[in-house]
């Protein structure tokens, strides 16, 4: 095939092309179609896709001088495909994981059996930045802590999926899943021919059901709102999008007020009671009375209302302890402890430099490892050993030695690569996958998720804050 003739395989797994340079069966129809697409048609479609995002305002705003400039998020139009059998395993593994993590959170904030049984060191939990002591013994509706979860998966050389991290606080990006699909359907409708792709559109309805479920004890027709930091937040587009699709009010902290131990919103007809809040503000900013007193985004007294059960939150407070990167190292034990099952999805080998021997190992092997701060996300606080300069490595060594609890180290995983349009040719670029899991009346996994792609050649960092893009993800029905 002309198009893939000069395509080079990287060191890792390739999603479309196998080691013998043959296109994998489920990608064949697509590859043929891409090969016959004239260059000028592709350029036209690319422009149409950019306009699609720009016109709809699927953008983030860069503020320069006074005027805001709208930028679209980088994207690629070659869809990533996941065959049905692969997806079946992923889905089962993700459900198992969120179920266990939720039992774990319940336990941490109640009896702490897992700590008493010595499965996880006590100091690891109490030392975690996102563990909320003030949350112990506070009941949450249906004992569900994590209602929306975005778990990052990667594939190693052998094609096996690994869990890289769980995002249990305010995972974002799902709107790009929905928008990428809509764009593909409008701009490349013919690429779908011959493929039965599972729907993603019903995500918002499923999320709304979750919100209603956790507030069912407060009202027969609960009033749900989405709490956003406002238009200057980089995920504001997503907040507005989800609120619109769910048909719920998009509120900011200044729209809410606590009165008579209930959360009210200021409306043109006076105050109106709110039963459930899908909050897209971190714990730290949600209530200046309890957390950061300098927060302008939150609502004074909100946590107290939550504590007394008069309003429901998705996600609950204090969930961040379970996506702490050091706690991550123990998640296989967590799954075994609560479910007496083996984990379906493996995690990446992780070193906690808590004892002398491991610390030594991490320090001496740092140029072969990835070092991450345990409480950071979004690709921040991360040093890639093989590509870091000597100065960066020395700095990282000093930092790890000073605060061993704050760091983990992992072997460098190469990440799978996926053909991606670079100019007029397809080149391999690294990808990961973030499926979204909802937990309400039952656990539901959005088929597919966000495939993030590192658009820079050779780069292993896919985060949008670090120049990553995204692509549509197709879960096939067979």
């Amino acid at each position, binding site marked *: 095939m002309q198009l893939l003739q000069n395509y080079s395989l990287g060191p890792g797994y390739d999603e479309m092309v196998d080691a013998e340079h043959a296109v994998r069966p489920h990608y064949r129809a697509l590859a043929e179609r891409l090969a016959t697409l004239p260059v000028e048609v592709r350029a036209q479609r690319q422009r149409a896709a950019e306009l699609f995002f*720009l*016109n709809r*305002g699927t953008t983030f705003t860069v503020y320069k001088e006074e005027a805001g400039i709208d930028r679209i998020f980088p994207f690629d139009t070659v869809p990533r495909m996941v065959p049905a059998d692969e997806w079946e395993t992923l889905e089962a593994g993700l459900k198992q994981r969120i179920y266990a993590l939720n039992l774990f959170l319940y336990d941490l904030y109640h009896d702490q059996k897992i700590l008493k049984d010595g499965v996880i060191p006590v100091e690891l939990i109490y030392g975690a930045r996102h563990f909320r002591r003030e949350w112990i013994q506070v009941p949450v509706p249906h004992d569900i802590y994590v209602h929306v979860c975005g778990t990052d998966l990667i594939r190693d050389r052998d094609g096996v999926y690994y869990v890289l991290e769980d995002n249990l606080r305010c995972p974002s990006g799902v709107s790009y899943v929905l928008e990428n699909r809509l764009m593909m359907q409008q701009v490349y409708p013919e690429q779908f021919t011959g493929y039965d792709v599972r729907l993603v559109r019903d995500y918002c309805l499923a999320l709304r059901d979750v919100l209603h479920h956790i507030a069912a004890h407060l009202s027969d027709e609960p009033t749900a709102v989405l709490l956003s930091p406002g238009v200057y937040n980089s995920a504001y587009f997503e907040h*507005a999008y989800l609120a619109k699709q769910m048909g719920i009010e998009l509120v900011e902290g*200044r729209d809410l007020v606590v009165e008579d131990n209930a959360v009210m*919103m*200021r409306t*043109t007809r006076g105050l109106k009671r709110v039963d459930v809040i899908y909050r897209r503000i971190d714990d730290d900013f949600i209530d200046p009375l309890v957390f950061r007193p300098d927060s302008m985004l939150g609502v004074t007294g909100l946590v107290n209302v939550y504590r007394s059960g008069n309003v429901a939150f998705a996600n609950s407070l204090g969930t961040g302890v379970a996506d702490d990167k050091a706690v991550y190292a123990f998640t296989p034990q967590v799954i075994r402890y609560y479910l007496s099952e083996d984990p379906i999805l493996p995690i990446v080998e992780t070193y906690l430099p808590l004892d002398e021997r491991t610390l030594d190992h991490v320090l001496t092997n740092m140029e072969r490892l990835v070092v991450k701060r345990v409480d950071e996300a979004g690709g921040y606080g991360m040093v890639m050993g093989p590509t870091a300069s000597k100065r960066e490595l020395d700095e990282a060594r000093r930092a790890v030695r000073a605060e061993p609890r704050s760091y983990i180290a992992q072997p460098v995983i190469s990440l799978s690569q996926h053909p991606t349009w670079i100019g007029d040719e397809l080149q391999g670029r690294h990808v990961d996958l973030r499926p979204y899991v909802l937990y309400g009346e039952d656990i539901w996994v959005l088929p597919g998720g966000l495939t993030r792609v590192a658009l820079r050649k050779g780069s292993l960092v896919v985060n949008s804050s670090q120049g990553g893009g995204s692509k549509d993800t197709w879960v096939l029905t067979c």
Partner: protein
Amino acid sequence: MLSRVASALFWLARSVERSDHAARLLLVTHGYAQELRGVSPAAAGLCWGVTSRLLGAEPVEASDGRSVFRRLAYDGTFPGSVLGNLRAARENARGVRDALSSEMWETLNVVYLRVLEEAGSPPSEAAELSLLRRVQSSVHLLQGLRDHTLSQTDAWHFLRLGQFLERAGCMTRTLAASLAHPALEAAPSASHAMDPLHLAMTLRAAAAFEAYSQAEAALSLERVVHFLLLEHTFPRSVEHSLIEADRCLRALSGAPESVFHTDAEQICGRLVADLRFAAVEEVLQAGVHEYLQRLLARIWRLGEAIEHEYFS
């Protein structure tokens, strides 16, 4: 609905109405200044000063119509410009995207982005004029989408209230400025040709020329003032705009006709009653300029009362 959202919708609608008004005024002024050159070059030079003041800009040297035009259309740092108004509308819309239909948001977003793009590109007079026409049709599309994609709940009423209140103000100001237009003085020798030309321009600036021509046989000052101020069947007249605003206010508060629950309804109801029973002869006799200034002050107070009642 949230007070913050209601306020954003109200101001969004006002800015949108204003951008349509500004675009039309610029197109009409552009044509009028050109036509006047054949009658009185001195008078032609005065047009841009009047339009500048109407849109809230400092009076400028009249000699360079082109640069005034560009500033009033495409200078984003000037809030009264077409771009400035579209930007204000879009900023408000961004904060309340969930209260608008996706079609409305996209229409506003697209027209804003195109005008912004044009503002930065090398000027071509023809392209600039056609873009202003595009602004107008986008505004009309937006208002149509409002009426055909939104349920008729509070959000819809606030959007309409903003539009009609703004329209009442714009129409009153335009009429006042037109009747006191210095071109009328500057071209006394040609006044025979001047008067109908000027009245026609006044009607065009209010998008009323065709509707007026169907209703009236001849152009006369008295009939033009009547039409723009008191003709309740014409959707841009001040009276019609305030009747619509009154309806929105009563829909919001649930007050039946001829009863008022809020200060805003009282002010608006009185205004409507005064206009309904006014006669154009009396208005002209008492002094049309003073009449229009008093009207403007009352419309201003109405805006303040709405602000106080619903947004603060």
